[in-house]
């Protein structure tokens, strides 16, 4: 019980420190939201309008007061009002988050499963088709802009072949291409990580023992290498999981998905403090949760990594 309380208080304290740092950093960003709003609306940034906007958004108060007001509001469900849209931030985020989460999580899930299988195939047959393809996919993700790939997907699927309506079709049709785009850009890297991890197993004594027992190369590799490869891939993708919320902006812009990521990019340009602060708060909670869940998953894959187990990796 004491351990749980310690964890919860540590979690809360970490979150609070991140929130305070984010609050101060946002205020230090160059650019005044009141001027940006007035300019964008063609209103003419008169002194009286700027003062009016600042008062309406609570920016005329001291920084500590602003922070305490935001904190009290956030924990009670009042996340403030977006400077750009004039709507409650909570409502804006709640209706956009599912789109980003769906694209990010489905895309990453496809990349993990596909990358794992591809990595296994590449390790099973070095210099084979899968090995070459995974290398090409990893290099391509680094070399080709996601925007360009997105437009090529749009061109081929919607114009040349006309097999999906990515901009006006049903929800699954609209999710298909952005999900593929996210998956494509993670697949290669995950496959190479899996390939290396499986490759390490082929140098172990127990792998040769399995071969000596008459088990085929691929089967031996799968039976004795998958757990180690899964652990390695899990360690690699854990930081990537953070980007499920807020990291899919390009896919959302290209395919016109009304997600949170694109909204956050717009909020940065508008210096929409209320939206950005709430976004950071959610991402911080998500990150802390992901770290915890990943630790639990690692412990399940390798009990030696649990709190009560031996420290260290695979021996």
């Amino acid at each position: 019980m004491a351990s749980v309380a310690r964890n919860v208080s540590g979690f809360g304290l970490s979150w609070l420190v991140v929130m305070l740092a984010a609050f101060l950093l946002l205020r230090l960003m160059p650019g005044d939201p009141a001027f940006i709003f007035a300019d964008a609306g063609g209103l003419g940034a008169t002194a009286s309008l700027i003062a009016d906007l600042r008062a309406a958004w609570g920016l005329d108060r001291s920084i500590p007061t602003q922070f305490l007001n935001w904190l009290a509001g956030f924990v009670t469900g009042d996340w403030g009002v977006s400077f750009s849209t004039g709507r409650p931030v909570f409502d804006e985020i709640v209706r956009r988050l599912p789109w980003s989460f769906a694209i990010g999580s489905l895309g990453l899930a496809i990349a993990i499963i596909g990358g794992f299988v591809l990595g296994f195939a590449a390790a099973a047959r070095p210099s084979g088709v899968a090995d070459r393809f995974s290398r090409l996919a990893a290099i391509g993700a680094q070399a080709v802009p996601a925007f360009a790939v997105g437009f090529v997907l749009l061109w081929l699927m919607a114009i040349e072949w006309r097999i999906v309506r990515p901009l006006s079709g049903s929800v699954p049709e609209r999710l298909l291409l952005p999900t593929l785009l996210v998956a494509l850009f993670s697949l290669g890297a995950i496959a190479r990580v899996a390939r290396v991890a499986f490759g390490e197993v082929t140098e172990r004594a127990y792998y040769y023992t399995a071969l000596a027992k008459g088990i085929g190369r691929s089967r031996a590799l799968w039976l004795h290498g998958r757990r180690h490869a899964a652990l390695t891939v899990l360690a690699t993708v854990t930081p990537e999981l953070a980007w499920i919320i807020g990291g899919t902006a390009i896919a959302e812009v290209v395919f016109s998905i009304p997600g949170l990521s694109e909204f956050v990019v717009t909020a940065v340009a508008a210096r929409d403090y209320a939206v950005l602060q709430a976004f950071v708060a959610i991402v911080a909670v998500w990150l802390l949760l992901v770290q915890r869940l990943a630790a639990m998953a690692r412990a399940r894959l390798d009990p030696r990594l649990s709190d009560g187990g031996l420290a260290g990796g695979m021996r």
Partner: protein
Amino acid sequence: MSRLRSILAGAAFALAAGTAFLPGSVYADQPSISVGKTFLAGSIDPAEGSAGWALVTHGIAEQLFHVDREGLVVPNLARSAERVNETTWNIALAPGRFFSDGSPVDADAVAAALNRTGELNPAARASAGRLTFEAAASDELTVTTERPTPILPSILAEWAFPVYREAGDTLIFTGPYAVASFEEGVRFDLVPNAHYADAKRRPEITLRRIADGQALALALRAGEIDLAFNLPVEALGMLRADADLTVKSFPVAYQYMMWMNTRSEVLSDTRVRRAIDLAIDREELVAAGRAGEAARGAFPREFPFAAEASVARDVALAGQLLDKAGWLRAADGRRMKDGAPLSLTLDAYPQRPDLVTYQPVIRAALEAIGISVTTRVTATPTDVARSGEYDLFLWAQHTAPAGDPSFFLSLFLGSEGDNNYSGWQNAEFDALIARLGEEGDAEIRADLAREAQAVIASEAPVAFLVTPEWHVGLSSRLAGYEPWGSDYYIIRPDLMIAE
């Protein structure tokens, strides 16, 4: 192909099996017309942010006054406006106008709506402070302004003042279209307002938000939309090659200009500023941006108060002016004075990519007359402009958002203007602006605005460069659509399917 599509759609469905919590939509019934835009109203409440602007462009809402195709402020839901004293106006409402639920547009409803917006939305208090509306009769309003204004009709044409009626939790508007349903940030399904003239001739419209310009062009090419508003210039060739599509370009009032910081030692000399103005070839800028036309002055030529002609390039005269100012050519071609070279910074911002495109063109033009130029790009243009830490600053500004010239001239160039970025002070100009602020007659106001622009041209605190063009792509069904009014009036009563 249909089997492949079915398979892929099935795969997509399986892929999204866990997304049942997403907003659901039924797309089976294709509407008559589909319109794609890069922005969409986030709500249907004009009291929230800039929703009023979007609702007017969507053809859902209207104001008491609006700006017509010729750039004139004309009555719309109002019939006339009469100034009673410094801060009081009487507005007569037009007869025979209705909300989309069939109820008449009366003074009580208008007053309730505009008082509510004024209270909740700072944008409605920008031009003359808080406006208070009171029903004097069923078809007459009395409006009291916090600050005196001779141009209340123009203020009421601003996007912050759509008329609506509260009906429980819903807002009802008067535009040619009514909202049948909407998915925030994604789409609006619009039906003709049955109580608007010619309703039966009007098609139903689905309005979609397509955030990226290239994606917008591809959607038009794919036949997913009939009207694509504000296409990127790079996509026009592809669309023009398609015989089933039409691309129309039209000038918009977001004028491109270049501030010259008159507070700097070099640019405090009018001769230097005029030399810079004369050295720039506007047609080269148009060619570089691949759209637009040379700016005639502060306003596009459609406006009745636009200047008569643009500044013509005259390199010889520019050189003479620099000579007279003491900036003489050295052996290496650079202009020097007291041993120091004539060197300036030229700022632009990426939010308006055309301005960044213009930078090398302007640098080449100025270097041709011996001025060294260092280009810079800033992401926070307003901060830099207000700080005064620049020499030359490329800028985009809608100079007549509500069809009135005094907004831009007084706010950006008046000595006491809140946005006087160039720091220019000119008594003759200020006197003209003061008269403009008091004059109510439209023709006299246009004359005063032209006189003020002549004073600007003679002193060059700003160089007006290009009136940009935007581009609209149309399917054959909407080939008769004519765009105008920048992005303020996109879906209008005359948007009809071509016969």
